[in-house]
């Protein structure tokens, strides 16, 4: 079962994608491993490597160590600017 990945704001715009279903290679079990997979696509996807890109798993902000697994909703986005 795949992961659901969402992209927001400037990142969504740069990637030209707002959401995708992605089946990561075996062994990809953390946010940072997943991120590395996506960056490996090259081109615009290298933007995901930027230090200020934040991640959420199942709608909670997490660090790179957070685990991800089948059925999870993962999101990548720039620093937030509400209020």
């Amino acid at each position, binding site marked *: 079962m795949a992961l659901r990945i969402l992209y927001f704001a400037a990142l969504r715009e740069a990637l030209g994608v707002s959401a995708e279903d992605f089946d990561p290679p075996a062994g990809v079990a953390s946010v940072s491993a997943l991120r590395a997979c996506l960056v490996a696509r090259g081109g615009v996807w290298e933007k995901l490597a930027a230090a200020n890109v934040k991640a959420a798993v199942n709608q909670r902000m997490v660090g790179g160590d957070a685990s991800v697994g089948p059925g999870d909703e993962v999101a990548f986005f720039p*620093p*937030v600017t509400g*209020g």
Partner: protein
Amino acid sequence: MSAQQAAAGEMLVSVQEADFDVGAETARLGDGRRDVGGIATFIGLVRDANDGSGVSAMTLEHYPGMTERALGDIVEQACVRWSPLSVRVIHRVGRLQPGDRIVFVGVAAAHRGEAFAACEFIMDYLKTQAPFWKREETPEGARWVDARESDDTAAARWSAAASASKG
């Protein structure tokens, strides 16, 4: 004790396109209660200039689902630290113009110090923890607003305050 007391009041969070009525929202925080000593509120507005450029409009994007959850978590943290009797958070999304209201945070408490602190804490955390993004329209074109370091600093001082008061 404080979490229990807080649970007695209304802790309401909304994310919406519609504007809100400041008078009605503020009044509701004290409605039917006689133990409220003070209500602190904050209203954020769209400014017509930012980082040296004119701003003719702004569009707020958010992460539906996570936004409500993040705001709820922030309010819950405020309820653990202080003892607000009721809290209201409203954040608008969509396209807004200079002078338009963006956000309302209102906190009713027995004493003013708690009301002010909880209100400012919620605003500072909202700025750094809630998934909203602003895209401004300027004469030079549209641009995404960068996060401010000053907002991280503002949010961080509450952790420093917690360590100091515990230690």
